[in-house]
């Protein structure tokens, strides 16, 4: 009996894997509620940028490489928006200890992109993020098509390359 159950499980797993083969994306952005800096709720499933790509980064005020990543992106962000229309959402996973310091930090550092708060890590878990920084790129249909873990000096150049490929309809690989 146990063997039979296991067999059925294996078959069902392979079915799921098969279902995966059809689309080469990580699927749509999950519908999880986060907060804006004004304290309003925001459903990540409804994120959109008029059919243009979106970059989502996970970060925290205490995460050194995250701050570096955003400082580096901020320097070129205006150009990115002008050239590609891309929009960046930086999702802070700061908890109640430091989440109230997010807005002053963002403004103090002159960061120009959108900021969202994921205080208890609900969106982080749904997106399978281990530790920040973790960056995702979403295509015009709202599907996650690329992701990258960590940040090394200069990585931001790769993000915009992916965005450009998406706009031009080129394969990402």
């Amino acid at each position, binding site marked *: 009996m146990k063997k039979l159950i296991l067999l059925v499980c294996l078959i069902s797993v392979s079915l799921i894997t098969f279902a995966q083969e059809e689309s080469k994306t990580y699927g749509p952005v999950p519908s999880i509620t986060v907060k804006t800096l004004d304290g309003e709720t925001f459903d990540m499933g409804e994120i959109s940028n008029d059919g243009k790509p979106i970059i989502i980064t996970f970060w925290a005020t205490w995460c050194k490489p995250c701050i570096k990543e955003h400082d580096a992106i901020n320097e070129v962000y205006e150009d990115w928006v002008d050239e590609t229309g891309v929009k960046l959402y930086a999702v802070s996973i700061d908890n*109640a200890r430091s989440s109230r310091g997010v807005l002053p930090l963002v403004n103090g550092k002159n960061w120009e992109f959108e900021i969202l708060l994921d205080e208890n890590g609900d969106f982080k878990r749904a997106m399978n*993020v281990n530790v920040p920084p973790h960056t995702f790129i979403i295509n015009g249909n709202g599907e996650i098509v690329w992701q990258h873990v960590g940040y090394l*000096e200069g990585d931001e150049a790769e993000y915009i390359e992916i965005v450009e490929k998406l706009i031009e309809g080129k394969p990402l690989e």
Partner: protein
Amino acid sequence: MRYFIRIICIITLFPAFAFSQGILSGGNVTGNVQVDAQVYQEDEKLGITDSTLNYKKFGTNGFANIIYTNGDFSAGMRFEGFLNPMIGFDQRYEGVGIPYWFAKYKTGSLEMTAGHFYEQFGSGLVLRSWEEWTLGYDNNIYGFNAKFTPAKGVTLKGLVGVQRFFWEPYEADSRGIVRGIDGEFNLNDIFEPMNDSKTKITLGGSFVSRYEKAVSKTIERDSSWMEITQLGDTINWITRTTYEYQLPVNVGSWAGRMNLAHGGFNLYAEYAEKGNDPNATNDYIYKNGQALYSTVSYSTKGFGLFLSTKWIDNMHYKSSRYESGNPPMLDINYLPAISKEHQYSLATMYPYATKQNGEFGFQGQIIYTIPKKSKLGGKYGTTLTANYSFAKSIKKEQIASDIPIDSTGTDGYKTTFLSIGDLPFYRDLNFLIEKKMSSKVKVKAAYFNQKYNLHVIEDDLYDEENMVYAHIGVIDFTYKFDRRNSLRTELQGLWTKEDEGDWAGITLEYNVSPSWFFSVMDEYNYGHPDADRQIHYYNFAFGYTEKTNRISVRYGRQREGLLCVGGVCRYVPASTGLTLTITSSF
């Protein structure tokens, strides 16, 4: 094992079944994996031998998350294995299994979760379940969670469940049951005239209750008196009275909160109270708990300011009144430490962790960016940050002259709301300058001045006998050779006359974007009062990242200390060895 198969089948069969039925199609499986493996070796300098390692020369902590999503349905699980738990993790974690699985469905305005879940009401003063892998912290709730959004701007939540305690499954009365409701109301969305107002107001409230069976618990008190007999003899009489605790079976707590935002101005305040809850963390006193947490901030382009205060009294709230151990388990609520979480290793040598049963805390921070192309700001601008925080005791007075503070079975002590005591727990003043010198060079410099009450923070001894005063300086220098290659150099120093004395640290990190990093690091405790313990804590590491796969290898010495995330700390003993870390998402 049977349990395990059952869960696997529920999670895998349901979508497969639904898929074959054609009800749901185009589902999605995503997940992530992390495995840390450590090989330990003996190290005479650190006093590590096979027997201090308990002959456990190899430790592995790992997890795998799998989430299946299909439209409004999702289900997932986390498989964990600790074989054996790595050094610094509680041995009760040893084992493998699935401590977390869930199924969630959203239809219209209602979202239901069955299984395990994480939830937070407000800032967490009365309820927060969360996990932090690096800390070995997980207080997930196993039960039902409902979220209802009847109208725009209104969110109602309700939950019931039991909490995780290592691998011990819940059995009747083995620990308490947690119930809670929460409502949040965004006035701008609810009231039409306020729709377009620039002032955004959100109000919220929560009520949480814990049920735990009361077992008989007694305490004995002696009272004595003297009597002189007619013959002139003195007789000492002692009367021993046995008291039986009337332990509350249901312990309630509630909180109210508000958030007011107007442009760059933001005010948040949350106030909470807890009913009498004699438990192992408060010496079984009957006093009610009270907490206030508030932050006000103002910011505009290039400038940010925030001030936070926190006052808490007797707010330890766990789903078992008998639990007081370390690591903290079965926490129902979360009381954040409000000091800054630092990014440089020597600045985290003396970290602060909240004292749940009585603390006043304050934090203020200013960030200012000197504009680009100005005289002081240079071509790229310069960012300055100043931060100050402290934590102190609250005032506690005896309830009667013959009853010492914290006497078990009494009200414990008297206090006044927002009173500040005399005993310092912690103080931290720090400055950070960040400047991009040219397209190739970035420099950061930081100074920290810390006062750390070691007895209070590490040993729960409420005196001033072991204060540590430390100065810490950091210079962080990045040189970018070209688009892909960069070198980061970090110089750190910690100077103190107390504890383990002075430290110096150097880190060299060579990065090749987007894939490789190599680093060499040494922290040298050159000022240790005992010459034999002036130890180099060296580390060599490299890592490779390929999209979402990351493999890193580190060899070296880990210094003893507290590892803290969000004000919750884990003690990490010293160790020497090789660490392999693999993380991956799919």
